[in-house]
C-alpha cells in the first residue's frame, strides 16, 4: 500500500466570515485511513470540508490530492477518484432511487450494465436495495440521506486504485441507530480497499468506532489532533464542548466510549 498521503492539508487558512476563520489546519490522510473532523457547532467543520473541495477560497496554505495541488487536477479526472457528500441535498425532481445513484457514475465511461451492477451493490451497502424502483421524493429524510450516500459510493466504486478519497459531511445525520452502524461499516468497507476517508461527525462514539485519527476544531482552531488516546480525553472533551464527560472503553470492539 502507498505510504504517501492521499489527502494532505498544509497550513490551511480560510476566512469563513469576519468573525471566524480556520487557522493553520494540518491534516494528512494516507490510503486506508479514516479521519474524523469533530467539534462543537460553528467550529468550522463543514467550512473545512468546503475549503478542501475548493468551494471556499483559502487565504494561505494548500490542499494536495495524491501529491498534486487540488486546483491543478482536471475536474473530470478528480471526480473519478474523489467523491463528496454535502451536508444536505435538495433534489426536487422526480427521479427514481436507481436513477439518483446512477448519477454518481457520470464521471466514468463504464457500460450501462456495469453501472447497473455498481448501483445495485451501492444500494445494498446502505440497505436501500428495496427502494431501487421507488421515487426518491417519496422517501423519508433518513432514506434520502442513505440514497445520497449510495450515489457518493457509486462514484468511486472500484476494486483497485488506492488513490481514491471519500469526503463526507455528517453522513449519519438523520439516520436511525441501525443505519448509523451501517455507515460505520460503509466507511470501513472503503477504508479496507485503500480509500482515504475524511468525515465530519457529531457523534463522538460513532467517530471513535470508525476513525483512525481525529481533528478536533473549536472556533476555527485545531484543539487537538491525532489518535483517539490523544484527542478523546475527558479533559479535552470537557474544555471544548463544555460538558462533563467520562471516557471508558467499549468492551465489544475496544473503541473509546464517551459518556456525558
Amino acid at each position, binding site marked *: 500500500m502507498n505510504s504517501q498521503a492521499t489527502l494532505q492539508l498544509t497550513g490551511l487558512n480560510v476566512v469563513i466570515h469576519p468573525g471566524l476563520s480556520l487557522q493553520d489546519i494540518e491534516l494528512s490522510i494516507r490510503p486506508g485511513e479514516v479521519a474524523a473532523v469533530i467539534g462543537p457547532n460553528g467550529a468550522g467543520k463543514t467550512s473545512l470540508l468546503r475549503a478542501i*473541495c475548493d468551494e471556499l477560497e483559502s487565504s494561505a496554505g494548500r490542499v494536495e490530492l495524491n501529491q498534486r495541488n487540488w486546483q491543478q487536477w482536471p*475536474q473530470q479526472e478528480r*471526480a473519478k477518484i474523489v467523491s463528496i457528500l*454535502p451536508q444536505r*441535498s435538495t433534489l426536487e*425532481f422526480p427521479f*427514481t432511487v436507481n436513477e*439518483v445513484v446512477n*448519477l454518481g457514475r*457520470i464521471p466514468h465511461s463504464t457500460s450501462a450494465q456495469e453501472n447497473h451492477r455498481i448501483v445495485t451493490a451501492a444500494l445494498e451497502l446502505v440497505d436501500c436495495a428495496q427502494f431501487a424502483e421507488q421515487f426518491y421524493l417519496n422517501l423519508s429524510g433518513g432514506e434520502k440521506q442513505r440514497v445520497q450516500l449510495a450515489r457518493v459510493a457509486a462514484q468511486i466504486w472500484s476494486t483497485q486504485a488506492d488513490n481514491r478519497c471519500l469526503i463526507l459531511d455528517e453522513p449519519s445525520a438523520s439516520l436511525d441507530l441501525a443505519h448509523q452502524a451501517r455507515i460505520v461499516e460503509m466507511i470501513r468497507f472503503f477504508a479496507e480497499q485503500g480509500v482515504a476517508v475524511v468525515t465530519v461527525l457529531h457523534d463522538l462514539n460513532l467517530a471513535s468506532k470508525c476513525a483512525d485519527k481525529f481533528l478536533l476544531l473549536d472556533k476555527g482552531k485545531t484543539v487537538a489532533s491525532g489518535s483517539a488516546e490523544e484527542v478523546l480525553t475527558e479533559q479535552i472533551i470537557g474544555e471544548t464542548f463544555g460538558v462533563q464527560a467520562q471516557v471508558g472503553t467499549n468492551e465489544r470492539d475496544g473503541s473509546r466510549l464517551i459518556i456525558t
Partner: protein
Amino acid sequence: MERIDSHRLIMALLFLLPVLTLCYLSFGPSIISPLRLFGNPESIELAREQVILSAIRLPRALMAILVGASLAVCGAVMQGLFRNPLADPSLIGVSSGASAGASFMIVFGASILQGNQILGLSLVSLGAVLGAVLAVFLVYRLATNRYGTSVITMLLSGVAIGAVASALNNLFTYFADSVMLRRISVWEMGNLEGASWERVLLMAIAALVLLWRVPRYRQALNAFLLGESEARYLGIDVEWVKKELIIITAFAVGVSVVVVGNIAFVGLVVPHILRGAIGPDHRYLIPATALAGAILLLLADMAARTIIAPAELPAGILTALVGAPVFFTLLVKSRSLNNPERL
C-alpha cells in the same frame, strides 16, 4: 406517478409529427393534398394550390415545428439550470428582453437597415438576442447567491426585468415613426402568419445550434438537478456549462421572438408534462421535449387558423389562453408538495 417508457413515447412522437404536418398542410381555407407539391401544374387551379402550399403553408408548418421544438427545449434547459420546474423563457424576462432589444434596433438601427430585408432582419435579430441574453443574465445574477438560486427571487426579478424591458420598449416606441411602430407591434403578439422562407431559415439556424449543442450537456443537466456543488463534485465545469447554455437558449428564444413574436407557455408546459411522464433524465427528456413542442405548436396554429375561419387568431394568444391555467395549476400543486420555504 406512473411512468411511460421513454423509448416508446419518443417513437410515438416521431410517428405523430409527420402525420400532423401532413394534416397541417392539407387543411385550411381550402383543402389541398400535400402531394400537389410534387407533380406538374397542369392547370391554373393546380398552380394556385402549389403556391399556397409552397409559399404559405409549408414555411408556416416548418416555422411552427422549429419554434415549438426550440421553445420547449429551451424550457427544459432552463428548468434544469435553475433546478426549478417552473422556469420558462417568458417568465424570467427573456422574451421581454428580446422584444426590447428588437425594438431598439428597429428604431435606432433604422439608418443602417436602408430597406435591406436580410440585413434588417439579422440586425433586429442581433438586438433581440442581446436583449434576451442581458435579461436572463440579470435575472440569474439577481436570484443567485452563494446558497443557490432562489425560486421566488427568480420569478420576482423576472417580473421586474420584464417591467424594465417593456418600459424601454415603450420608450423606443415613443421615438418610432409609423412604419417602425407597425414592425414593433409584430413582436407583441405571437403569430406565425408572417412565416417567410427567410424567417424559416433564420429560425432553422437557431434551432440547429440549439439541438446540436444542448444534447452534449444532457448529463451535465442531470448532474445540475442534484445541485451546483454536487455537479462540480461530479466533474462538471459548472460555470462554463451555465454560461454556454444561457447564451444558446437566449439566442434561440431571441430569434424565435424576432420571427414569430412571443409564444407563451410552450417552454413551460411541455417539459413539465413530459418530465412527469418519462422522468427527468435529460438524455430522453430533450428529444421528447423537442418533438412534443413541435407537435403542440403545430396543433395550436392549426386551431388558430380554423377556430374563427376564415379569419385567424394569433397562435401566441391561444397558447397563452391554454397555458396560463395550466401554469397556475402547476404552481398550486408544487406549492403543496414542496417545502414552502423554497417557493
